[in-house]
């Protein structure tokens, strides 16, 4: 079954993105140097920016299709997005941040699911705090939990460890591995760090200057790039 299928074009000034790939569950690693168009691609999947041309489909539902004029708005796509900087709401407690997606989607309160995610990410002791008082690693774990608790059809992670030092990365990677092995939600994981992806990705799409350079398994990751983290 084809899970995420996209074929999109977008011009941003001098930069031109023309990407097409399909992924079938698991963790799809989007790999490439900074400036390869990874984040732009993620924003198009999430619906934050519209492609100039093309099609994006998720589980056979069309999210975007320039030919038939379909563009499902961001808030109805049900795609969880973990940003590099976390983007937790500073005026809400951790608990309220976690609950935000459920409330906005009008889902029933589900204590068991909340407990499961809180335990998975080990954030039970943070619930009453404000995001301003969390460490970088804690913040990213809460951001992952917030995205998971809206029960997404797909989880996008854009360099979720990008702003953390090596020690913190090592602290969070096991949680992300647990999440992958849990296998309840397919993920697209963006990184320019081959080591990180070699631990997490089940398939890899390599981007170069706005185009797909290669598609395959983790063997695509350049061994020379397997740096500090692996």
């Amino acid at each position, binding site marked *: 079954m084809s899970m995420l299928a996209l074929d999109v074009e977008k011009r941003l000034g001098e930069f031109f993105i023309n990407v097409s790939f399909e992924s079938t569950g698991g963790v799809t690693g989007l790999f490439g140097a900074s400036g390869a168009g990874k984040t732009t691609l993620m924003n198009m999947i999430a619906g934050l920016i519209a492609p100039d041309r093309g099609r994006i489909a998720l589980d056979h539902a069309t999210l975007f299709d320039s030919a038939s004029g379909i563009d499902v708005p961001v808030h109805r796509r049900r795609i969880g997005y973990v940003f590099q900087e976390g983007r937790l*709401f*500073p005026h809400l407690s951790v608990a309220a941040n976690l609950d935000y997606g459920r409330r*906005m989607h009008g889902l029933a309160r589900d204590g068991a699911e909340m407990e499961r995610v809180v335990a998975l990410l080990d954030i039970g002791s943070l619930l009453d705090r404000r995001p301003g008082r969390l460490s970088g690693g804690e913040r990213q774990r809460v951001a992952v939990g917030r995205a998971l608790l809206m029960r997404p059809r797909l989880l996008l992670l854009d360099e979720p460890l990008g702003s953390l030092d090596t020690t913190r990365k090592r602290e969070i990677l096991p949680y992300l591995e647990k999440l992958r092995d849990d296998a309840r939600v397919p993920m697209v994981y963006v990184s320019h760090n081959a080591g990180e992806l070699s631990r997490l990705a089940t398939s890899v799409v390599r981007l170069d200057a706005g185009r797909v350079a290669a598609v395959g398994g983790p063997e695509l990751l350049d061994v020379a790039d397997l740096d500090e983290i692996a």
Partner: protein
Amino acid sequence: MLDLSPDEWTAIRLSLRIAIVATTVALPFAVALAFLLARRNFWGKALLDGLVHLPLVLPPVVTGYLLLISFGRRGPIGSFLADYLGIVFSFRWTGAALACGVMGFPLLVRPLRLAIEAIDRKLEDAAATLGADRLWVFLTVTLPLALPGLIAGMVLCFAKALGEFGATITFVSNIPGETQTISAAIYTFTQTPGGDAAVGRLVAVAIVISLAALVAAEWLARRAGMRFHGE
């Protein structure tokens, strides 16, 4: 304490009522306008911005006169509102509230606009990915994050409304019990032989109310700020 006469109490109550009504009614308009000015680009934006700030620089008498000829009983807007909605401004406390609201409006819009401009729009994008439509993004992210600016604006508008004199007296005159605010009452007493004691009492009241408003605003802003930085 202060031994205030019934007339003085009336002026104080009236001033508070006018300032509260003026600020409250102006608020939704100010929020909408501040959002528009902060986020949208459209033809005539600079003109609209100028119009909003006009009461700040025009002589208050001019603003009052303009209100009189447009919102007065025979003015185009005034007669329409009176005939179709039964709202009368001329020589009523409602007219004083309108004058105070117009005078305080730029002071309400400005800090709000700056607060909205300072908000990280990436947080709004994050809210949208979590399922919030535009209205919910505004209500649950934009507005709460603009709260310190909102409080600052409301205090400035309230203070302006409380002390407004020129536009009010030009528009709705100085009628005890209807349009005579603290400022107007002080002015009247200064023109009356032996009115010094009354002036002194009302001046003291004006200082107390203004200080209380400032302290309350400081406290509220501190609390709102604290919510963003933990505790």
